[in-house]
């Protein structure tokens, strides 16, 4: 009995974990370490994001806040529609006025000297021919 036990113990001592198993254990350990690296990253990222959000919402950059919808509290849809129409129309009018002004400047100020210059050149060429 004792001899059997000693033999068995000796055999057990000599036994080695198969190479495949060792590799698998190493692989899994390495994977688990890699996944572990995400955790502090996520925690730090979330903390930074919270900080950014908090800074922009709790401490806005300016002490004077534009009141975006103050004038439109409980607005009538018909009034909003007219506001949209008139606002866009006036912006369009300004653009039209600008283009008209440009045309007028070209017609009144830029074209006459060009035309004069052309006539003078034509006359000079005719005289020299």
């Amino acid at each position, binding site marked *: 009995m004792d001899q059997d036990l000693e033999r068995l113990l000796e055999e057990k001592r000599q036994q080695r974990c198969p190479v495949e198993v060792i590799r698998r254990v190493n692989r899994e350990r390495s994977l688990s370490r890699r996944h572990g*690296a*995400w955790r*502090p*990253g*996520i925690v*730090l*990222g*979330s*903390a*930074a*994001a919270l900080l*950014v*959000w908090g*800074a*922009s*919402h709790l401490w806005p950059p*300016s002490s*004077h806040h*534009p*009141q*975006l*919808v*103050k*004038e*439109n509290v409980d*607005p009538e*849809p*018909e*009034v*909003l*529609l*007219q*506001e*949209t*129409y*008139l*606002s*866009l*129309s*006036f*912006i*369009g*009018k*300004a*653009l*039209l*006025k*600008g*283009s*008209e*002004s*440009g045309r007028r400047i070209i017609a009144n100020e830029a074209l006459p000297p060009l035309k004069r210059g052309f006539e003078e050149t034509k006359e000079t060429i005719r005289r020299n021919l």
Partner: protein
Amino acid sequence: MKKLKITVVLALILAAPLGALAQTKLTDDPAYLKIDEVIDLQIAKPQVNVNLPKFLLNNVVSEFDGGDGDPFAQVGMNISDLIKDIKLIRVMVIESSDESRSHLEKAIATLRKDLERSWLPIVNVPEDNVGIYALSDSSGEQMAGLALLVADGGDIVVGNVVGNLPIGKILKLAASMGGENQFDFEEIIGKFAGAGISDKKEKK
């Protein structure tokens, strides 16, 4: 050390998009003209004060798109198509008074300086003090906003559209209104007053 580097990089990557989200406020848009910061409405009371952020524009579209009483439909235009890329329409008309004149003159100078520094002047009519400026998006291929500044003495018309304004359609819309392309303050205020928008009581 390697682990620490990976952690820091991951933290930065995760924080970046959320940081960007915090910047998506309308007032942070480069095309947002800081009219309300420059003009103190307690000192200079506007006759016309239009303030239409996207959600109100969407409200208009949901109620009226092509329906009865839609002035856009009457000139063959589609309001939802016109405002689909617009985030804000802001128009303010102020006639100066003795109390507000110096404040308005300073405000006009500040606005003009801001516009001339960062925006592209697209229309300039010096004899009428009309200036229209545009801003493109980061790609340079699309409009990010439009600003209008008309200053006559202390009187002022200031407009700001944040987003992509379809210029061709806006010109067509303006042409369909008829009339002279003049900037008569009384006429502008009168048009808004006719629509129940202008505050005639506050006129000087």
